[in-house]
C-alpha cells in the first residue's frame, strides 16, 4: 500500500462576506495516496475547488483558512504542514511540487505572450532553466510530450492562435514544466467538446503513468469520475459525504446524496424512461441547515439528522460515510 502524499485534516475555509460567514469548506478530512488518481466530485458551491486551492493556500480574501491541517509529504519523506509555511516557500512549492490545471485554458494563458514565453516564465521562476534558449528547447520537448501537433511552430504562437484543445495541452505542458509530483486538475475538460475531452483525459492518464504522478481531479461529471479515478470523495455543501474506492462508490453508494446523484444522471448507454431528480436546491452556505446539511432533501431524514452532524464511519474496507443511517447506537 503506497503512503499518502497529502493528508487533509479537518480543513475549514470560510469566506467573510457582507451577507455573513460562508462556510464553504467546513471540516473536511481525506488523504491522497502516492500514484493514485483521486477525484473530488460535487455540485456547484460544494467546496470542491476551494478545497483543492486550499492545499497550497491559494485562497484570496475575503476567504480565509479557518482551521485544519494539510500535510504534504516532501521529497525526503517528511510531512510538512502547508498551512504553516510562509508565502515564499509556498510559491516555490506551487509548480515544483504541486501544479494546477484550471477549467478555462483561455483564462490561464496571457494573450500578450507566446506559448513559449509562458514556459520560460514558469521555469525561470523556479530556476529550472538557465537561459531563454534552454527554455524554448524544454518547451518544445514538453509540448511534444503533451502531443501538441507541430510543437516547433506552436511554441511561437500566441494563445488566440490555438484551438481550445491545444490551449489545454499547452496549459498541461506548462503545469508539468517544473516536474511536480502532484497535479491538480480542476474541471480540466468542462470547456471542451466530447472528442477533445476524450483526448485530454487520455493524455492525463498517459502522463500520470509515464511520470509517476499523483493526480487530483475536481469534477462534477460522474462519467469522468468513472473513467478516471481510483478513489472518490463526494462533497455536499462543504461537508464530506462519502469517500471510497471508485467501484464501491458506484456499486454500493452509501450516502443518500450519492445514491440520489447516481440516479439523477442519465447514462448514455441505456434507454432511461425516467430520471429521478433530487428535490429542492443546494443550500445557501451563509445559513446552512443544521446537523447533516443534506437532511432537507434526504428521503431518510430522521430527527437526529436535523440536530447533529454525523461523523465519518468506516462501513466497509476503505469506504467511509458521514450519515446517521450507518451509526451504531
Amino acid at each position: 500500500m503506497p503512503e499518502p502524499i497529502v493528508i487533509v485534516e479537518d480543513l475549514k475555509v470560510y469566506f467573510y462576506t457582507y451577507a455573513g460567514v460562508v462556510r464553504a469548506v467546513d471540516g473536511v478530512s481525506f488523504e491522497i495516496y502516492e500514484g493514485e488518481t483521486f477525484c473530488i466530485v460535487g455540485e456547484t458551491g460544494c467546496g470542491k475547488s476551494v478545497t483543492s486551492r486550499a492545499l497550497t493556500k491559494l485562497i484570496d480574501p475575503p476567504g480565509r483558512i479557518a482551521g485544519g491541517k494539510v500535510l504534504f509529504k516532501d521529497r525526503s519523506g517528511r510531512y510538512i504542514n502547508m498551512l504553516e509555511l510562509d508565502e515564499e516557500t509556498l510559491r516555490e512549492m506551487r509548480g515544483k511540487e504541486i501544479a494546477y490545471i484550471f477549467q478555462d485554458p483561455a483564462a490561464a494563458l496571457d494573450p500578450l505572450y507566446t506559448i513559449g514565453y509562458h514556459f520560460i516564465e514558469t521555469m525561470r521562476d523556479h530556476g529550472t532553466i538557465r537561459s531563454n534558449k534552454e527554455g524554448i528547447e524544454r518547451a518544445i520537448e514538453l509540448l511534444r510530450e503533451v502531443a501538441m501537433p507541430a510543437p516547433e511552430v506552436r511554441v511561437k504562437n500566441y494563445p488566440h492562435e490555438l484551438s481550445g484543445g491545444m490551449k489545454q495541452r499547452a496549459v498541461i505542458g506548462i503545469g508539468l514544466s517544473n516536474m511536480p509530483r502532484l497535479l491538480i486538475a480542476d474541471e480540466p475538460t468542462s470547456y471542451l467538446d466530447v472528442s477533445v475531452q476524450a483526448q485530454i483525459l487520455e493524455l492525463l492518464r498517459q502522463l500520470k503513468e509515464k511520470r509517476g504522478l499523483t493526480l487530483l481531479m475536481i469534477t462534477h461529471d460522474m462519467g469522468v469520475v468513472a473513467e478516471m479515478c481510483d478513489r472518490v470523495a463526494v462533497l455536499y455543501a462543504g461537508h464530506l459525504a462519502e469517500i471510497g474506492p471508485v467501484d464501491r462508490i458506484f456499486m454500493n453508494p452509501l450516502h443518500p446524496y450519492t445514491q440520489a446523484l447516481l440516479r439523477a444522471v442519465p447514462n448514455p448507454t441505456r434507454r432511461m424512461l425516467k430520471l429521478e431528480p433530487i428535490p429542492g436546491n443546494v443550500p445557501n452556505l451563509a445559513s446552512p441547515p443544521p446537523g447533516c446539511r443534506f437532511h432537507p432533501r434526504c428521503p431518510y431524514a430522521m430527527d437526529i439528522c436535523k440536530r447533529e452532524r454525523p461523523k465519518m464511519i468506516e462501513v466497509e474496507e476503505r469506504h467511509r460515510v458521514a450519515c446517521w443511517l450507518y451509526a451504531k447506537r
Partner: protein
Amino acid sequence: MPALIQVENLKKYFPVGGKLLVKQWVKAVDGVSFEIYEGETLGLVGESGCGKSTTARLLLRLEEPTDGKVLFEGKNIYKLRGRELKEFRRKANIVFQDPYTSLDPRMTVFDIIMEPIRVHKIDVGDPEQYVLKLLYEVGLNESHMYRYPHEFSGGQRQRIAIARVLALRPKFIVLDEPTSALDVSVQAQILNLLKDLQKKYNLTYLFISHNLAVVRYMSHRIAVMYLGKIVEIGDAEEIFESPLHPYTRALISLIPVPDPFQARKRKKLMIQGEPPNPINPPPGCRFHPRCPFAKDRCKKEEPKLIEYSKGHYVACWLYS
C-alpha cells in the same frame, strides 16, 4: 405524424474579414434538410461551431437564411409578413441556455411572464390568475410572483424562463442547452418538467445539447451535425444502438459513462484533432481528415444523405 416543420436545403453564410474585394464566408449552415414532426423532440447534436445554434435561430427566423426555406405548418416562414409573422412568433419560441442572462434583473417574475402577453395583446382574463396558473405549471407558486430573478437559483430561473414561453401557448419550442448551466441534481428536475409539459400540451421540441446522454434521454429522433452539414439522422434509439457514420460512432463511444465497470469494458473510437475551420472546410466529406476509415473517394466527392434503413439517413461513402 404530420411534419410541423420542414427544412429544405437551408444555408447560412456569415461574411468574415477577408482581403479587399475578396469576401470570405463562414459556412455555418451549409445545406441542411430535415423535418420535425408534431409532438416529437428532435435532438440536435454536434461539437461547438458545427452550426447547431445557427440552425435553431434560422428555424425561428432570428436570422435570415442565405438560401433555402423552412415551412412551418406548410408556410415558408421567410415569406411571412405582418400579422402572420407575429402569429408565427407566438407559436415558435425558445428557451436559452443561461437563465442568469435571459431574464431582466429589473423585472419581477409577474412582469417577465406577462411581457410576451402584452406584446401579443392576448386576452387572458385576470392576469394574476393566469400567471399563477403558469407558475404552478412549472413547479413554482404564488410566493414567487413578485420577486426578482436574483432571488432565485439557476433551476428556478430556468422554470421562470419556461413559464414565460408557455404563456403564449406555443406549438414549437427550441431548447438551446437548457440544462447546461445547471447542476446535475437540478438538471433532472428541468428535463422531467419539459417532458411532462410536452405530453400535456403536445409540444414540439428542437433540443440542442452537447451532452449526448441528456439528448438520448430527451429525444425521439436525433440529427448529428458536423461543420454545417447533417451527417446522420434517425430514431434516437437506433442512433445510439447502431450508429452508422464514423463521427457519430466516435462521439457515442467517447461519452464518459457514469459506471466504472462499463467504462473499462467499452471500446473507444478515438478521433484525432479538432473540428477544422469552417471558412475553408475540407473538400469531399468534411470529416475525412479525422476519419479512421477515410478512403480516396472521401477526399474528392461529397457523400449525399441517403436512407440506409427506414427513417435512418446517413451521409457517408461507407454506406453507398
